[in-house]
């Protein structure tokens, strides 16, 4: 199974990325198909923005928040597993667990009063939401390194930073990456909700479609969001298997 996933992964990443590009470019030319789906609407292809712009803006928001969440999450995960930061470990662990139970819409709504409407509150919300799986997996990955290995590393004369960089992080890498993967794929879906507070995302056609009762719009947005999530997930799988 482990072998099979390595062989399948490049294929999956490539096809899902190709499909995504294909759909984003061809949706505007597929009026006949969408007309069949939604015969009564005056407009069946979303045209207030190009799908490409929405896709890039959506991906941009996820990448930015994902980057911040990964850096902050990994660093805080490292800090609370050091000797000096141990006291904060239960606290951070609890915050990470509780935070995960908040619905993303609530986080978005809470971010608006602080930053106004648009892309900024979406990045804040996505970062906060994406932080949790990263922190949790970083802690789990570092705690999972066997005590014997750490004792050997210290006893052999590695400095604390050498132990971290040469032993702990390489051994925890897979688990940390799994956290980043979860965080990013969840946030690709969550980012679509950013449209409700004025961010430019692939959620725009979905929201517009829901308001106007236009299934074709909803479908166009939803397919692109789903393909983006699948492509991102496949790319992470590639990274993980390449590091194994």
């Amino acid at each position: 199974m482990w072998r099979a996933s390595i062989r399948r992964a490049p294929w999956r990443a490539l096809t899902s990325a190709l499909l995504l590009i294909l759909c984003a470019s061809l949706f505007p030319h597929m009026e006949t198909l969408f007309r069949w789906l939604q015969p009564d609407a005056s407009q069946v292809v979303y045209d207030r923005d190009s799908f490409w712009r929405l896709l890039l803006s959506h991906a941009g928001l996820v990448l930015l928040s994902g980057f911040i969440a990964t850096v902050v999450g990994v660093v805080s995960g490292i800090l609370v597993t050091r000797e000096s930061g141990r006291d904060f470990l239960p606290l951070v662990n609890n915050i990470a667990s509780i935070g995960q139970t908040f619905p993303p819409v609530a986080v978005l709504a809470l971010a608006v009063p602080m930053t106004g409407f648009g892309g900024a509150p979406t990045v804040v919300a996505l970062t906060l939401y994406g932080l949790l799986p990263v922190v949790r997996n970083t802690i789990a990955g570092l705690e999972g390194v066997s005590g014997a290995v750490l004792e050997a590393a210290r006893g052999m004369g590695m400095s604390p930073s050498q132990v971290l960089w040469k032993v702990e992080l390489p051994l925890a890498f897979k688990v940390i990456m799994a956290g980043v993967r979860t965080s990013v794929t969840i946030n690709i879906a969550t980012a679509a909700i950013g449209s409700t507070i004025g961010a430019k995302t692939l959620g725009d056609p979905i929201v517009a479609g829901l308001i106007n009762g236009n299934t074709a719009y909803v479908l166009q947005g939803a397919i692109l969001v789903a393909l983006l999530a699948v492509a991102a997930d496949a790319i992470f799988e590639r990274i993980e298997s390449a590091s194994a």
Partner: protein
Amino acid sequence: MIRLDNVSMKYGEQYAVRNLSLDIASGDFCVLVGTSGCGKSTTLKMINRLVEHNEGRILINNQEIASFEINALRRRIGYAIQNIGLFPHWSVAKNIAVVPRLLKWDAQRIHNRVNELLELFALDPAIFADKMPHELSGGQAQRVGVARALAADPDILLMDEPFGALDPITRESLQEEMLRIQSQIKKTIVFVTHDIEEALKLATRMVVMDAGQIIQYDTPENILHRPANHFVENIIGSQDRGLKAASCKQVRDIMRPDPPRVQGAAPPCRGSGRLWAVDGANAPVRLLQATVDGDASYRWREIDVTPDMGLQAEDSVKLAISKMLWRKVAALPVLSSDGTLLAEVRMADLVGGCA
């Protein structure tokens, strides 16, 4: 070489080690033995400062270890532990090379040293250098663990129950290997175990510990024959002391070289005592034991020498006794590495001439 001078260490209010003084000479194989919680592991770890002592001084070559930079100190001391702790993401070669790399040796020197160590532990570099730790058996992994501890050629080797997690057969073969390697490298070894037989077998000096203090510090012989008190007597087990003494003695200590032998199969017509019948290559074939028949005439009792009867000079006397009991013979051949008759071991010598 290593001197612990009135050293104490406490966890909270509880002393793990109390007022302990110990001198370990260069080249000694010093084994700390005692029940769990007696402070033997703590004592070991104070030497490379994985545990810091609270009181007293620890000196290596008359220099206090507190004065060394901590990681420089540890790189000078080999360290092997029970759970081995090989780095699972590195190959065997890279694992062994850890300390040399920390010391910034050049690549060629590291490569040579790794191969030298693999060969010392009878692991073929062509096969094992690129293996990953999870591909090794327990015994192989611990060989690599000890090789890694020796990589930068430290003067001191600390071993914390290194063979404790291995099955008895692997443990025994690693003990033998440790003795063979120590006879070549002559390090100062501090070794912790709770297995008294292991201690007796490996040690040149033994430290029996209880409740954070040294009860007796002596040679294995003296510990067996002159236990300091009831506690030591209990630890060594008073009933089978004879067998334990035999297990820490080697066949070479009691064997008689060049035993009487005859070429070919045909025994002489009259004989007395004992003879070894050897073949053309001087390998023993039969043991000939003179016996007196009912009519007072001599007769040879012939016992075929099977491969399992042969001893090596470095085997333990305990093994010799076991083989004698099993094969019901009063003498065993000691063979050289090519199978020729080198010496014999006699039951009479084991019991001081009373058999």
